[in-house]
């Protein structure tokens, strides 16, 4: 069966990848259960808010250079736009790119529109985005409200595309459609594939697609060492970069959870091979990743040289870090594959991964050849005893942290680090997904761990005065189960 969905929408992850949101056990149990596809996704009797597909979609769409976004939503869905603006500015500056400003208009769905429909308003918003920002492509983002009123984005987008003469791309990221927020990434990528990505006009043998989150440009100098160029996708990419991604020599990811859908389609439709090993986090994965990239770009000999040289270069400082960090324990909280990436770094630093929480878990990948990062992690580091899958849910995460008491907590998602500080656990935030890649990434991580451990006093001070909103029986009791029937 084709990976590319023929319908305007891509299937949600719980059906496409059998994604789950709860598990408690060890890494091997999760791996075995996933291989058999027998883990279910029950609802919760008690839940705390998490993320939605729309929020994930905007981390991509807001940051496409030359494009504008119309959020077809009540005004509240757009409240985060100022944060994205600050992010776009900061990252453009860090990457030496022209300042990126988020060009967004909210169609401001109000009660009247929920009854009579809002298609005309959407057309007006698209025209206004065209007039104000002069974009060369417009994304129309769906919302819960547009989904419930059954707005036909498809026809408005086609109509407007004809009128404006450039791509108008519907993104079906209604928040209630999937329990797995990463479905929002798939929705953006599906839109790009349908409306923007062109058939290759040739092959650029030295160009590597890297699907990424908004972050620093660590990959660019890193692959430059092999004489390769990086096509950093999607945040801060130009429309031209997006259109021609089909011409790259191969596709790699910062995190398998982000982009297996589009990477699978690029291989299937346009013959762009996908790198089939985990991303370059930790020394052994970095070696393997470079070799795999080299295989697609004819740089095998250079890669072997580079690996040898890099390993030698970091030997001394790494030894020092190991001496300082040996025996420390860390707990990792992050999105599915990215948690595996982070966890694979610590063995190199002599730090024990005392536990791992992934915010969801895909039991399948989009194509059978894509790497099973959990299996790879077990092969690399052995079984990890305390593994949970949990979509944020601080009421559960806090109990685990209280039980395991790691020396350090590392978190990839915003607004969860507060759990660590309120419990007196020094906490590290992995906000820039690129920060810890490659050989230098291991060293940087070691240095950052040392700095973070020095915040012990801050964490203890905050914990000494913070009050947790949970009843004592909940904090004291054995982990009570608050999940409902299988769905």
């Amino acid at each position, binding site marked *: 069966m084709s990976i590319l969905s023929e319908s305007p929408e891509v299937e949600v992850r719980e059906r496409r990848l059998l994604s789950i949101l709860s598990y408690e056990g060890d890494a091997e149990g999760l791996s075995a259960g996933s291989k058999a596809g027998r883990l279910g996704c029950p609802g919760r009797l008690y839940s705390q808010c998490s993320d939605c597909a*729309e929020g994930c979609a905007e981390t991509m769409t807001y940051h496409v250079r030359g494009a504008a976004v119309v959020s077809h939503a009540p005004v*509240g869905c757009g*409240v985060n736009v100022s944060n994205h*603006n*600050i992010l776009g500015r900061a990252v453009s500056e860090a990457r030496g790119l022209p300042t990126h400003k*988020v060009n967004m208009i909210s169609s*401001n769905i109000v009660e009247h529109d929920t009854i009579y429909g809002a298609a005309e308003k959407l057309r007006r918003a698209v025209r206004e985005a065209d007039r104000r920002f002069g974009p060369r492509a417009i994304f129309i983002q769906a919302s819960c409200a547009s989904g*419930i009123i059954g707005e036909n984005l498809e026809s408005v987008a086609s109509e407007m595309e004809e009128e404006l003469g450039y791509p108008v791309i519907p993104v079906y990221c209604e928040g209630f459609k999937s329990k797995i927020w990463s479905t929002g990434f798939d929705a953006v990528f599906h839109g790009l594939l349908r409306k923007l990505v062109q058939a290759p006009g040739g092959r650029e043998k030295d160009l590597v697609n890297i699907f990424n989150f908004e972050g620093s440009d660590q990959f660019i100098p890193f692959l430059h060492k092999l004489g390769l160029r990086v096509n950093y996708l999607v945040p801060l990419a130009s429309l031209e970069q997006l259109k021609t991604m089909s011409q790259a020599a191969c596709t790699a990811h910062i995190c398998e959870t982000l982009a297996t859908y589009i990477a699978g389609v690029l291989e299937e439709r346009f013959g762009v091979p996908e790198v089939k090993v985990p991303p370059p986090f930790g020394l052994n994965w970095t070696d393997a990743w470079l070799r795999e990239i080299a295989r697609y770009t004819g740089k095998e000999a250079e890669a072997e040289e580079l690996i040898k040289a890099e390993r030698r270069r970091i030997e001394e400082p790494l030894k020092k870090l190991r001496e300082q960090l040996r025996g420390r324990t860390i707990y990792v909280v992050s999105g599915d594959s990215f948690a595996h990436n982070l966890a694979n770094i610590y063995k190199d630093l002599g730090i024990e991964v005392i536990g791992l929480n992934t915010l969801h878990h895909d039991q399948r990948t989009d194509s059978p050849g894509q790497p099973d990062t959990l299996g790879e992690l077990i092969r690399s580091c052995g079984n990890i005893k305390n593994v949970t899958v949990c979509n944020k849910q601080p009421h559960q995460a806090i109990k685990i942290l209280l039980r395991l008491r790691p020396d350090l907590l590392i978190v990839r998602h915003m607004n969860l680090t507060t759990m660590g500080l309120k419990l007196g656990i020094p906490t590290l935030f992995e906000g820039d997904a690129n920060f810890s890649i490659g050989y230098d990434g291991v060293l940087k991580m070691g240095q950052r761990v040392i700095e973070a451990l020095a915040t012990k006093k801050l964490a203890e001070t905050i914990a000494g005065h913070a009050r947790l909103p949970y*009843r004592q029986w909940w904090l004291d009791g054995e982990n009570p189960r608050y999940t409902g029937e299988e769905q």
Partner: protein
Amino acid sequence: MAGIIDRPRFGCALGGALGLLRAIPRAVPILHAPAGCGYSVYIGLNAGAGYYGGGYCGSTSAPSSNVVEKEAVFGGEERLREQIASTMEIMDGDLYVVLSSCMVEMIGDDIRSAARIFPGVLATPTPSFHGNSYHGYDLMLETLIRDYVPEQAGKKPRSVNVIGLVPGQDAFYKGNLREIKRLLALIGLKANTLIGEGESLEDIRRSAESELTLNLSDVYGSLSAEAFKEKHGIPWLRAPLPVGYLQTEKFLLTVGEYFGLDREMIDQALQREREVYFDYLERISDSYNDLDFQRYGLVVADANYAPAVTAFVAEELGWLPRLTVVTDPLTGEQRARLDSRFETFEPSIKPEVRYDGNASAVRRHLADTWERNRNQKYYEALSPLIVIGSYFEKDLAEQLKCSYLPLSFPVNSRVIFNRAYAGLSGGLTLAEDLFGAIIPGR
């Protein structure tokens, strides 16, 4: 009012209600919403309000029914009842309030009837399509006043409730309330600001014993003021947020007049305040001219700050505010009320006032009101200029190569704890921040 908006300067009604609950110690919200609403609204309001934080039970800790497609088809009230019950088992709160999102309102869930089964649990419908976060604050506060505040037989003389500053939108609400409380105490009034420093649910419960409700806003808080009046027989008075000495004096005279206080007494009370205030402010007279501290002003702010800040810079700093853009969606009546705030300005300092919330529209209004340089024989430039606005005006200030101070939502580039711009101490702080922003070479 219902038009499209380029980069909104507020969240939804749900966000406003969450902002208020976050300001109340040990209040626990229960969202009946898809999973993303609570977090998305929080993350916007947090940074926009000067890094407000999730507090006791906000941010990712906020209980939420996380409804999905199944509930969209079959209804979500059963899931909500389950979530209310489990929240009360697990979460340790003194107040539980159910709030709703767009989606559950559109599928027809009735959160009030679901909440009614649980004694003491309140409910406030807060879909975004009903209004923005300023409105959500008002809806939430109205619910507390109608359904939570117990009726009181007698009133305590000279006690005043203070409302109209919106937590989560106004980054300075808490510092401002502290100053308002202090000012009212100067003339012998005891203020209950409901969500100020050291105040708790107990203060909210006791609010029915006040004699008067002071609404500090021309636009926000009207439902709540009316609820105090209807439910608890407390009349209300509009006395807009004062910034600086001149406005503070007027504010205290207005409130004093209501209580029939002697003008002389008020003036006496202000005597020491004047000494403190002008002892600081007059320092600037040594530098004002030497360092050329006069500025043209462009003010872009919400309905509480726009008139107050414009008047402050014009009347107390001698600046020339040429354009003020009020960024709320307003009714005709609200607009007329704000218009009247600008009518009292001397002609030489009276700004052009526009009403527009669109982030990219400010530049257009500026072009409309100030002639462009077209190589005329003589061109009077709008310079030196300061832009006083929100984070969205940063780009504009850079384009215009002028000074800039963000103070109206969103203020992502500042961290605000107990800072205040209200009243006398607030006026001095604002003057410090403004002069600080224009010191050459800074």
